[in-house]
């Protein structure tokens, strides 16, 4: 890499204690602009905990989270979201009885105290309306626009969740196991989608168990095990790293 680029996201020295348990131990990672970064590791390694610290759900015991160089550590979640970090969840969390269209509309950014929010969106904020329509097209959700999101097939629900996340106009998108439970074709769809999102300027940080998926997609990987960062590097470096193989295949001794 030429020179030092300002990272989009920086997590520096994050430790998270739950009682006496050290769930995360001095974790540092960064995501550069337009980079796709993966966090991998066995169950319970602390991957989702890392996401929860970044999005403000947990306050880290020590350490700092910075977005574009600005500290956002343990800010209220909605302010972190507005600063430019959106996420999806491992167990899909859509809004109960909302249609796909309503999911896209509700996540559009808006200022806090304006009359706009009190009037029908269609007239009050045609810009938000148009942006939501673009995202609907972009994620190929136009056909199911007026369906209740939770009644849709699993694979489409994932797309709705991603659509909602990008409706908030993030700079950084966190994806928690985006292809969990998907068949090969669905997973490949999501892979192409993630690449397109990156090309449109987003930085992406994702968690997944599917090694093949992660290796094919990510520019850079971090490997967590029992709350400790045991390795990091490009996919080809990780693939041949004995420490990683050991963590994944079980300890020999």
């Amino acid at each position, binding site marked *: 890499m030429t020179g030092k680029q300002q990272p989009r996201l920086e997590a520096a020295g994050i430790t998270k204690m739950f009682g006496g348990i050290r769930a995360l131990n001095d974790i540092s990672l960064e995501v550069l602009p337009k980079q796709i970064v993966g966090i991998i590791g066995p169950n319970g390694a602390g991957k989702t905990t890392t996401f929860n610290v970044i*999005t403000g*759900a947990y306050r880290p015991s020590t350490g700092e989270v910075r977005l574009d160089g600005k500290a956002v550590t343990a800010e*209220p*979640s*909605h302010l972190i*979201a*507005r600063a430019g970090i*959106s*996420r999806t*969840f491992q167990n899909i*969390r*859509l*809004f*109960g*009885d*909302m249609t796909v269209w*309503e999911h896209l*509309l*509700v*996540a*559009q*950014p*808006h200022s*806090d105290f304006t009359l*706009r*929010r*009190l*009037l*029908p*969106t*269609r007239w*009050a*904020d045609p810009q*938000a309306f148009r942006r939501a329509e673009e995202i609907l097209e972009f994620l190929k959700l136009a056909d199911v626009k*007026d369906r209740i999101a939770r009644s849709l097939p699993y694979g489409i629900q994932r797309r709705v969740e991603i659509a*909602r*996340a990008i*409706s*908030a106009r993030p700079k950084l998108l966190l994806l928690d196991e985006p292809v969990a439970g998907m068949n090969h074709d669905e997973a490949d769809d999501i892979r192409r989608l993630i690449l397109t999102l990156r090309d449109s300027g987003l930085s992406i940080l994702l968690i997944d168990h599917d090694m093949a998926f992660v290796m094919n997609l990510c520019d850079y990987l971090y490997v967590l095990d029992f709350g400790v960062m045991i390795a990091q590097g490009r996919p080809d470096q990780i693939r041949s790293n004995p420490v990683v193989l050991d963590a994944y295949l079980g300890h020999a001794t």
Partner: protein
Amino acid sequence: MMSTYYAGLLADVGILLLGALSVYIILATGQLSLGNAGFMGIGAYLTSYLTVTMGVPLTLALVIAAAASGAIGVIIGFPALRLRGIYLAMATLGFGEMVRSFFLNFDAMGGAGGFHGMRHVSLGYIWTWAAAILLLVAILEHSQIWLELRAVRDDETAAALVGLDTTTIKVGAFGFAAAVAAIAGGLFAHHHVYIEPGNFSFERSIDFVLAVILGGSTVGAGALVGALLLVMLPEHLRFLADWRFAVFGGLLIAMLLVRRQGILDRSLFRFFEFRRSA
């Protein structure tokens, strides 16, 4: 010419509609309040004080009472943030009873003896308010803010993570609902021209909740249907004499078993919207 009997019933419907809307607004954020009769009582007493003692015109008095009650609603909304479900229901119930016993001991306005001297308002005046607020809610239901309310109800964590300020939304809903309930109280006082603390008891709060659940808890218009049913149905069951409330209760249970979401719901409205646009 409408009989005074029906005029009285319709006035009750209008007032109950406003009370039910106040519950509906809070329920839209996923919070159940069993204390809205408290806000109604605050509205009733404050409006009456302003018109009788201060000589303020009724409309202005209602607006002032709504603003004051709304401010109290916001204050109540903050501790309510820490409570969910049945615990919140209990806390709001406690608030309602607190307000009632305050007026019971508030001798400056009659205490247990009640307060009177208000001038009677017409049915048209009551319904102008009721219709205006129902219309306001119906417009709000198509706005960004209402989507945000629903998002908060469905999944607060996910809502915050797309940038919604869930605290302001929940507290704001409490404030707005308290203002609406206060207007119901002011109109109640000037319809009956006499108020006593017992008018704003727990049963009143339950009536509001019942109207919402019966009429449909996912659309504002449900409050209208619920209020109509709750007032009119027992009247039309009068031929059953003392059994009418038992039969009414039975009908309520049957209705919840068959159609839990209430008589009106959103998919019903969507259905009609589709037909219109088709």
